[in-house]
């Protein structure tokens, strides 16, 4: 049995991942997986966490020394941060402060749960961090770039390169089939054959037989799995998930979450998960709790 709380540094030496994210960035398609085994940080309490048995100790002692160091650097690299992030909205009764001077840093590969009561500002924080909205004050840095001063065109470009989304209400395009929905990020990037990757991802979420089904013809769980496949189709650096199980029953929600963590692990994506589900939050590396727009 692995220990309940493990240092990432320790786990880096004891868990394996067959798709290192930096490799993933450069390869053409997931249909040509990397054959290299790279040590990688385990996810706390993830049922899918793979424990390396250590059958080939040499792997860590000799050939992987440099890569291990790279991984450590990667893990320490901040991919998302916020400084004094504030969101104020005007109302008839005066300004309402939704977020009040949030400071945070999220490292590459980290999974962070944002929890809090309704109205605490979770979704607003996600919107600001994901460059969907602009703050009233403060700064957000995503993948090394300050997004708060960017125009909408540059932010869209950044989202296309680095950000994936999974929403509570799935947000699939109703006029598109499951396959077409998953192809969309590739199409927007101008990829010549986005269908191949989309089919691969649909197979990864267990929907290989549902390519031509429209969202209306799919169950809630299936729709969310299509949304998962679409989120990973853009090969994101950071995946933002907003209450991904909010519209699903417990069993279905659990299955979707398992897939989410599987893929997150597989693609070595940084995860920012907004949820009010404590059990789900506990599966993340870190939990950030918001109360009345402040981190506690």
């Amino acid at each position, binding site marked *: 049995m692995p220990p309940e709380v493990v240092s990432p540094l320790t786990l880096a030496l004891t868990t394996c991942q067959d798709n290192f994210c930096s490799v993933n960035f450069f390869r053409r398609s997931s249909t040509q997986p990397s054959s290299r085994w790279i040590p990688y940080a385990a996810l706390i309490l993830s049922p899918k966490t793979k424990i390396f048995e250590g059958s080939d100790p040499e792997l860590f002692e000799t050939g992987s020394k440099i890569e291990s160091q790279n991984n450590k650097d990667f893990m320490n690299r901040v991919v998302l941060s916020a400084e004094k992030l504030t969101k104020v909205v005007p109302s008839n009764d005066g300004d309402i402060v939704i977020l009040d001077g949030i400071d945070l840093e999220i490292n590459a590969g980290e999974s962070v749960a944002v929890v809090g009561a309704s109205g605490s500002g979770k979704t607003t924080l996600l919107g600001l961090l994901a460059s969907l*909205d602009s703050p009233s004050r403060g700064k957000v840095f995503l993948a090394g770039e300050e997004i708060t001063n960017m125009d909408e065109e540059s932010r*869209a470009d950044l989202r296309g*390169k680095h950000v994936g989304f999974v929403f509570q209400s799935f*947000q699939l395009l109703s*006029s598109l089939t499951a396959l077409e929905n998953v192809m969309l990020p590739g199409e927007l990037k101008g990829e010549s054959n986005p269908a191949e990757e989309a089919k691969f991802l649909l197979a990864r979420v267990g929907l290989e037989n549902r390519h031509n089904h429209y969202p209306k013809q799919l169950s809630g769980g299936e729709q969310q799995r299509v949304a998962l496949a679409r989120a990973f189709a853009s090969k994101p650096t950071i995946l933002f998930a907003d209450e991904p199980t909010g519209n699903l029953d417990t069993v279905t929600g659990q299955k979707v979450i398992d897939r989410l963590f599987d893929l997150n692990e597989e693609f070595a994506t940084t995860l920012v998960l907004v949820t009010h589900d404590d059990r789900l939050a506990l599966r993340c590396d870190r939990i950030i709790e918001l109360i009345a727009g402040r981190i506690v």
Partner: protein
Amino acid sequence: MNLRTVLRMIGRDWKGGELLLLVAALVIAVATVTSVGLLVDRLGQALIEESADFLAADRRITSSSPIPEVYQTEAQRLSLAVAETTSFVSMVHTPGSSQLVSVKAVSSGYPLRGALRIANAPFAEGRPANDLPAAGEVWLDGRLFPILGLSIGDQVEIGAAVFRVGRVVVSEPDRGGSMYDLGPRLLMNISDLPKTEVVQPGSRITYRLLLAGEQDDLEKLRIILNLDSSYRWESVRESSPTIGAALERAESFLLIGSLLAVVLASLSVALSASRYVRRHYDHVAIMKTLGAGPNQIIYMYSLLMIIVATFSIGVGLLLGGGLHLIITNFLKSVVVVTLPLPTMAPLFLGIVTGLVCALSFVLPPILDLRKISPTRVIQRDFPLAQRPRYVGYVWGLGCMLFLLVWYTDNLALAGWTLLGGSITIGFFSLLAKTLLKVGRVAGMQAGSSWRLALAGLQRRASESSFQIIVFGLAIMLLLVLYLLRTELLEQWQREMPSDAHNHYALNISPGQISGVTEMLAEETDEVGSFYPMIRGRVVGVNGVSVEQWESERGPTPEGGPRLSSERNLTHAEILPEGNIIVSGDWWAKGEEKLLVSLEEQYAKNEGLQVGDLLEFDVGGMSIFSEVANVRRLDWQSMRPNFFIIFSPSALKQLPTTFLTSFYLSPEKKKFLNDLLGQYRTITVIEVDSIIRQLQIIIDRVSLAIEVVLLMIIMAGIMALLASIQASKDSRIREHSLIRAVGGRTRLIRLALAIEFGVLGLFAGIVAAIGAELTVAMLQVNIFNLDASLHGWVWWFGPILGCLLILTMGLLATRSVVSSSPLGVLRDTN
């Protein structure tokens, strides 16, 4: 994103039905304008051709002096067809008899428009002539045969020449050119004219050069020739005021019809585009989260719209062309219509209309898409950063103004139409809101379906007001067109009743009046008054010779009557029927002073007014007469009309003959022989063929108007459908919720029926008010008719609105009742 992806998007939206209504609206817009344009173009050309028959040409130059050779050379240089006619009154002699005839000598090519009809025996059915009288031959009016006791092959003498009678002239296209082209017709070849020796210096002869060809070339010739006052350039409008007025009104109506079609079609395009774009807000927000930037969104949707617009315009052109073919085929089965081939203009009109509609009504909402925030994916009620509304309105109005100006070629008319339309919409908006409030108060007292329906209307107050305006406008336009059509047709019927006098008898001596009256009373149904008539002309104005007066005044407007021309003069004690005094006073009974009354246009052209002193030469006698009043005449009536009427004392001493008019049915035509046999000095002018021709034109204009009305109705229905579709989504959501909480289908159906019924009723009330105001304005300002109220509109409008919207609303929202509440609610989340 490449073209293939955009095409795929179009395919998906098409399959999903998202684009259907927008494409349909654009197709209808283009098809309506194209088919109306094609019909108007072809009917217009047919009407012009038909009307040109009245001149036997497209234009003609008329003078009492010979037409200079250079005129003909210039016309031929411009590739215009030319023919000459020379007309004069002369005596024709046979061994035992003689008769005053109206001689027309014609050159080859006559008539350039219309057909000369001839027969081999008097009063026989005519056939089109393929040739003209050969040299040494004359063709005579049927009436001359019994008068002169002639048969085909006999010889007649005109002046110094003898001719063989070849055929009977049944009708000639330009016979109606002048009501007082006296005497029965004798047609001869122009090459025979010199040998008759009747044309001498000082002879009263009318020379005409007939011209036919392209409008541009004709206009060029007119400018090149720059005719002096002794030559008159004539087109059908001037030579036949009745036809001219009918054409002008028809053109106005068809023009207004096309404009309304465009307005309605644009409304449909605007509504459908707005709905399409609204339904894509979430799509755009999702695509933005996936990395699509504003420019990419605009590129994608603009490309999509260009493809959709091109496709729609193509289909619209095909549909418009097909539709107009179907209608013309239908017309062929109803009346004998020979339509010329259309020009390219209507197709161009359709293409530009489609493009302008797309640019003005599809582009602005698409541009809004770039501002859709991706935050919508996590916060659905995130405010839309749209352009200020007035920008869209100004842009839309600007584009509409461009189309209106293009169609009407009249900035003032287009501007006023647009301003009037905007004021109407503002007024409708106020009215609609008031009606909705009243409806809500009443609805609170009613049962659940009523409460549900009226609460729904009130909840969507702006949407409902907008729909009332749209429905109201569409119904109003239909009512306006129907009212105008009825008004125009009735007016024409009044002016051209089936028993309109179709014969004029002239040269009736005072002693013949009682005998002629008796004969006419026995054989005809309608006999008019007897008007005294004498020929005379103005020779001086206020002590100045008429030549000097005319030269100081400059040339009269194209085709206008000339002061110095010899005219038929009459005298009357009471103001003739249909005449209205516009200045001065009609003289009292028994007035001894020498007074004269002038026709309004005649007085205006010659610069004459009440109080001026005119000197007339009547039969060599000078008469000085003061202008007592100026009259307005109804030239479109077939009654005898006079430019100049004297007070009874003025012509008392002079020998006058009389003129009367009567209606003779075609089967009683031989009565003319009896009349002319008994009273040989009388001349009868037959205008029945002119009236028949007029009635054919009016029939065609009426058909054109009805076809336009049909197209407008289609465009109106499209606008109504688009408007219903625009609010369908919110209705589906609302009623799904009601069903989800236990509302029965029957309740939903009833509520929908009430909602649409009430909307239709309110729209009908609004339409009735608008239609009455608009028609009154158009009657007075455009069609020169009297304004009148139409009682039936006040009940028919609301009932029509109620039934129309109810039926279409229920048909268009079947899915509101049939949609699964779960599916709808799931989509909503």
